[in-house]
């Protein structure tokens, strides 16, 4: 990007600018496997057109195609979509649609550690891609709810069967969701917030 003429730098549209009264932000992570609907969910509830932040990581080419000495490196760009919801004149909520592979998570400082909680999006056609994410969140003590995206040709399992298959504790909410619909995505976020609130009431939040 050419910064010489910074008049040309795209910025927020006037209506997307936050008021000066905003003092702090919170974040929620929407995590799930490839193509499960993360970007769709972020977009359906965001008040701004979803944006993308990128990070580059280089992988030292240890033992891989090591024909040119030990200097071979592969650069991978990892992108994360995010959106924003104004909560009060002082508080704003950001939603991040995050790839399911944990090796990407460390690229962004405190992405999960600082989040209020997470929504795990699952597609019942490919349930297994969510197993790893769920295990990682449990290990990190990140509170989460599970949202089952309603893809038309996906098998439908009774909630208790899903709970058993995903080996989820009885208190963890499992909801159906159509990420394309704002009301449905909002309800999913509300389910997460109510769950966090109940954890706070019982002092169970880690």
């Amino acid at each position, binding site marked *: 990007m050419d910064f010489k003429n910074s008049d040309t730098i795209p910025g927020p549209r006037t209506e997307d600018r*936050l008021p000066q009264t905003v003092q*702090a932000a919170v974040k929620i992570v929407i995590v799930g496997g490839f193509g499960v609907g993360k970007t769709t969910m972020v977009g359906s509830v965001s008040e701004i057109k979803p944006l993308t*932040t990128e990070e580059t990581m280089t992988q030292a080419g240890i033992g891989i195609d090591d024909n040119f000495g030990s200097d071979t490196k592969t650069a991978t760009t990892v992108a994360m979509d995010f959106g924003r919801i104004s909560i009060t004149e002082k508080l704003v909520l950001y939603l991040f649609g995050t790839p399911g592979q944990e090796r990407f998570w460390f*690229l962004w400082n405190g*992405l999960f550690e600082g989040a*209020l909680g997470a929504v795990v999006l699952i597609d019942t056609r490919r*349930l297994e891609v969510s197993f790893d994410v769920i295990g990682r969140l449990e290990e990190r003590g990140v509170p989460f709810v599970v949202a089952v995206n309603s893809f038309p040709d996906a098998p439908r399992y009774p909630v208790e069967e899903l709970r058993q298959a*995903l080996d989820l504790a009885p208190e963890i909410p499992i909801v159906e969701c159509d990420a394309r619909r*704002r009301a449905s995505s909002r309800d999913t976020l509300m389910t997460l917030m109510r769950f966090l609130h109940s954890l706070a009431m019982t002092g169970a939040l880690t």
Partner: protein
Amino acid sequence: MTPPQRQRRYPSQPPAPEPAAVGERRNPERMFVVGGDGGDRANLDLVTLIVARADPPPSATPEQTALLRLCTAPLSVAELSAYLSLPFSVVTVVLTQMLADELVEAHKPLVRQSVADRSLLEAVMHGLQKL
């Protein structure tokens, strides 16, 4: 049809949860190195809000000038990264210098606490209800 079954990697006792502290850079895969240079960086979260405190000084770099124009109103580091088309790590390097020079100020995010702030959770619920 029966769904596939998840196997817990730690079936008995879950390991102690990680502290909620923000800013420690965890690096579970040591093979990977984050882009950008590795100097001392300010502890900036994706949703740390940045606000300009000054007009661009004559000495400002083009990146700094662009950034100051963007954050005349509060803007998250993530948004700055998106609008400037720069990786998050590069933006944090630029901001570290600008914080030291007092060109911008940073507002830390509210993060998950061991004792959750119920009024914060209630405020978020109330805000979502209005959507």
